[in-house]
């Protein structure tokens, strides 16, 4: 049914921004790895699910925020280890090889999640109440706003890190020009590992933000990863800002489309993601904020 009320519309936008924040975090993770290694990490979603399960286990023993912080640390370390142990040996080989390795990783993490925690759906605590708050006659969910705030804080912290710290700058340098980076003394291999660690941490946060809404199970991140891909492609695979803008935009549009149309909802949301990827790749392959790749011959 098509009926617009300002309040309802505002509510849908905020709710879209909250899923968009999750897509943005995961899209940013994809972009960070893409920029430094030139490949898309197809295991990003499954690594996030695995980390969310770890958080779920930790939350049986401690309260939410300590478990959240500990999960971030574990995810970071896990990302570094995965790069060193699994990706390192295939570094510098063909893109196809690395892509297949990440696909394999996705299967491994998916299987490990089912094996350790079982395939049944679990509920996952949220640090935010689902109670609505009323602002100017519009009811917003505190949870939605909480997710938006956490995602944006995370993105902002990362921006500060990349912009103003020595290691952050070295990470960017290693991504754009590895050969040159070695001449100034940057250990490029470790920078790649660090990038994987940061990406894994972003994924873990995305997983923990998504789990209270979509419930925790081993396949939880599959649709979210697809949306994050769509967001990253939309924003430009080599643009961190594009990933964030793309994620938020995609969340809002997807939510509005499913709220105001009869036929897109539930499972039909997925094809929308695929259609966005297809259209962007056809008409603007570099995305909204990405760079056209120029190859010097």
């Amino acid at each position: 049914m098509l009926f617009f009320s300002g309040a309802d519309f505002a509510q849908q936008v905020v709710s879209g921004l909250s899923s968009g924040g999750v897509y943005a975090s995961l899209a940013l993770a994809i972009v960070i790895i893409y920029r430094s290694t030139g490949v898309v990490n197809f295991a990003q979603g499954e690594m996030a699910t695995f980390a969310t399960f770890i958080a779920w286990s930790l939350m049986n023993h401690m309260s939410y925020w300590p478990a959240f912080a500990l999960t971030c640390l574990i995810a970071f370390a896990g990302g570094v280890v995965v790069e060193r142990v699994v990706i390192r040996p295939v570094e510098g080989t063909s893109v196809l090889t690395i892509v297949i390795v990440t696909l394999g990783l996705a299967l491994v993490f998916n299987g490990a999640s089912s094996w350790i925690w079982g395939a049944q759906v679990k509920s996952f605590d949220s640090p935010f109440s689902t109670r609505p708050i009323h602002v100017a006659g519009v009811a917003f969910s505190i949870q939605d706003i909480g997710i938006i705030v956490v995602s944006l804080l995370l993105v902002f912290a990362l921006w500060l890190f990349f912009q103003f710290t020595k290691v952050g700058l070295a990470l960017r340098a290693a991504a754009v020009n590895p050969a040159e980076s070695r001449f100034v003394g940057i250990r490029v291999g470790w920078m790649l590992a660090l990038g994987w660690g940061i990406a894994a941490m972003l994924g873990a946060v995305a997983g923990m933000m998504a789990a209270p809404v979509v419930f925790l199970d081993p396949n939880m991140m599959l649709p979210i990863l697809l949306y994050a891909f769509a967001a990253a492609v939309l924003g430009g695979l080599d643009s961190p800002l594009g990933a964030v803008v793309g994620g938020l935009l995609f969340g809002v549009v997807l939510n509005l489309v499913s709220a105001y149309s009869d036929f897109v909802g539930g499972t039909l949301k997925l094809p929308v993601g695929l259609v966005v990827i297809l259209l962007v790749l056809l008409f603007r392959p570099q995305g909204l904020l990405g760079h056209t790749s120029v190859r010097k011959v």
Partner: protein
Amino acid sequence: MPLLELDHVYASYGGVRALHDVSLAVDDGQVVGVLGPNGAGKTTTLRAISGVVHTTGAVVYRGKRIGKSPVQAARAGIAHVPEGRGTFAELTVDENLRLGAYTIRGRADERRVLTYFPWLGERRRQQAGTLSGGEQQMLALARALMARPRLLLLDEPSLGLAPRVVRSIFELVSKLNAEEGLTVLVVEQNANVALDHSHKAYVLEAGRVALRGVSAELRDDESVRRSYLGY
């Protein structure tokens, strides 16, 4: 003992030999030129020191074996400005300078470096890739100096630049050598300008040292000029 010594160094790229029994020495406080035609092994000599190319023989810097990796060389106090500018084109001037100081603990002394490149200070926020060729070469030099190196490896700084710009770059190298005591090993195809601004020089030919000597003497020896330097 020289600051840097190459002792019977051989290097090859995938089975093709690029350096053949190269021995050379760079004394502390000197500017040393490596001359020769294209493909003589000049760039490979610098790459051997930085460990970008695999070598046999010894590369000794301040009494220690180096030449394993560019990171090792950078951390030992050697700044390498590779051929083709060697700046991070996507990053800003300021970020390039900060990266130069990557191996330095604590705050880098940007101000001291900028006294040699006053115009760079006003262009800090500019993307390095948007600078002109000469400006990028200057930025590459400035970035190298940020690491407070003891030894500077300079690869073909004249490449693609106007003669006037080339002169000013070499004048700056001489100035840094005189004022900061910076030791420089410079690879250059433009023998004329390199001999004018160096203490001694090696001439490479087909991966071997064909000739060595005091720069001023090489420059003034007509037979040397005709048979090796081609001018």
